[in-house]
């Protein structure tokens, strides 16, 4: 019984780790020079904003919801911060705080619509997606460069770990992932989210604050997405209203490949980090190889999604059978 329970709980996570190892070793064998600490750090730097968005998305998916607006929120905060820094001379630190607050407000509004009026999350966040993207282009249709000593300092910052330089973006990703891990696995809020995703009805009967948790999780996620947009400006040195188009799908894929159940109630934040590494490895391997075309990325990610969704379906089905 113990073995069984361990297997259902950690099977997706084990599968994810296995896939990552196989992928990484294959890529290293096929491409000379692929295997290096630098490549792993680059995986993190290059996908920092996707990873930060995926951390927030993990929490939303834990609760049984979904948020399709994160890509647009990234676009909005990116151009918003660039516009007020470059155009209005606002200090970047203030711009960052303002951007995160704006993101959180949008998330709170969406969460309220979802919880109070019982509208489907995908519809509400689709509207949020249109709203944020439209507003981004309304601020500026072109990309805006940011040059500010504070920015240059941040983007040139790197932590030296022996021969490996860890960029600020990668550090911010790691910090977000760590914060996400603590929230998800070591606070009541995080456990309540999993409980709600497992069974909202039961969570209500157990006296958990369901409404507050649902509104809060969309708020936190949009704040995360806003932060991801800011990290993206750090990475590119500019704000762009079209940044992050379709990123919500990548974020969802990262979460699901990380072993989190897309219907909610089951998962681990560490899995999301692994999911990001898998995603990054595929991308890096395809770019590194040069013979493979970039569209294989989407096909492989889609195939992984299919495999994980089918795997989860089988697990859930086997479990309901065992329970009877």
């Amino acid at each position, binding site marked *: 019984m113990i073995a069984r329970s361990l297997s259902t709980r950690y099977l997706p996570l084990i599968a994810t780790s296995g896939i990552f190892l196989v992928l990484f070793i294959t890529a290293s064998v096929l491409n000379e020079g692929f295997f290096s600490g630098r490549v792993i750090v680059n995986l993190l730097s290059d996908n920092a904003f996707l990873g930060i968005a995926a951390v927030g998305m993990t929490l939303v998916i834990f609760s049984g919801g*979904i948020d399709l607006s994160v890509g647009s929120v990234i676009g909005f905060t990116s151009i918003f911060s660039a516009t007020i820094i470059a155009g209005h001379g606002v200090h970047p630190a203030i711009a960052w705080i303002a951007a995160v607050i704006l993101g959180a407000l949008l998330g709170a509004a969406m969460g309220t*619509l979802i919880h*109070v*009026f*019982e*509208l*489907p999350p*995908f*519809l*509400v966040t*689709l*509207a*949020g*997606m*249109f*709203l944020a*993207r*439209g*507003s981004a*282009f*309304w601020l500026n*249709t072109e990309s805006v460069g940011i040059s500010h000593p504070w920015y240059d300092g941040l983007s040139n910052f790197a932590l030296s770990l022996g021969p490996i330089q860890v960029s600020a973006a990668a550090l911010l990703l790691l910090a977000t992932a760590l914060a996400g891990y603590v929230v998800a696995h070591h606070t009541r809020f995080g456990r309540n989210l999993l409980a709600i995703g497992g069974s909202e009805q039961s969570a209500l009967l157990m006296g958990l604050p369901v409404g507050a948790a649902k509104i809060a999780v969309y708020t936190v996620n949009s704040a995360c997405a806003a932060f991801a947009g800011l990290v993206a400006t750090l990475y590119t040195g500019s704000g762009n*209203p079209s940044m992050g188009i379709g990123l919500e*799908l990548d974020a*969802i*894929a990262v979460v699901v490949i990380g072993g989190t159940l*897309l*219907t909610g109630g089951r998962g681990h934040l560490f899995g999301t980090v692994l999911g990001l590494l898998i995603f990054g490895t595929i991308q890096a391997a395809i770019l590194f190889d040069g013979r493979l*075309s*970039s*569209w*294989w*990325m*989407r*096909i*492989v*990610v*889609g*195939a992984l*999604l*299919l495999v994980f*969704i*089918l795997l989860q*379906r089988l697990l859930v089905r086997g479990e309901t059978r065992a329970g009877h």
Partner: protein
Amino acid sequence: MNPAESSRPRRPLSPLVWLCLGLTALVLWNVVSNPAFLAVTLRDGHVYGVPIDIFTQASRTMLVALGMTLVIATGGVDLSVGSVVAIAGAVCALTLGHGAGLPLTIAAAIAVGAAAGAVNGLLVARLAIQPIVATLILMVAGRGIAQLLSGGQVLIIADKSFEFLANGFVLGLPFAPLLVAALFLAAHLALRRSALGLFIEAAGDNETASRFAGLAAARIKWLVYVFSGACAGLAGVLTASNIRAADANRAGENAELDAIFAVVVGGTALTGGRFSILGTFLGALLIQTLATTMYYRGVPPAVAPVPKALLIVAVSLLQSEKLRNRISALWRKPRKVAA
């Protein structure tokens, strides 16, 4: 005559009335500021004008929304239609490139769309995977498949007969809207003259009860996804024909969103059950008119999603039973105190 038609006026009337009012108001607002808004002129034996543009541009959304209406009526949703549009476009470029004729090309694109829908339907109806989750897979992978087919390039299609599909005129009228209108009519007749419409509504209204009454509800659900895929396939043909190219990256971008919006604005509830094909038609028209209005107001096209988003939230709030209950509770409370 029609077994179901004359009984319909009772139900989706009020959403349809609201839709028509909204559409009329929008058009009036445009006419006031721009009297030429409704003007239609005849040039070279073809009609031109803003209304014609609206119909032409709305035709692809309408087509995708037609399939989406039935999927939503069963309580599902199909997020993969945008990707299917891209795949179908690539298929068109390939088959025409290999010298196939127009009928074969169109058939191939529709068949590929239907096959994609069959996969979605299998996941939803047989494996009981949530529709959003199931169709997300193809939404992600589909664009990659389209790029794979087109070799990652925008394939130019130089074929006069193919171009005609989206850009041609018949008896002075644009062909694409005519085709789509004919398909809507055909779908309406097929659904309402046969019992298919009833079966779809029953499966969406109460799947268990429909199964208990002897309906093969899973087969109905599978079929609507196939149909949705086929519609998206044909929409892919029109899209490729319109731009005379297969663009795996941009073709069908946001098609799923516009289609879902058209369906919801058209009065078909996301919870499934009753559907209105006419409502979807008008809903797509309303959304395109809104976009065109924004364009004439000088709003950059990229900003146009904002009013769309506000519209969809407003409409879903209006349809939300929760909100209605709250409002009626507010209404009742003071009365109670008075009594």
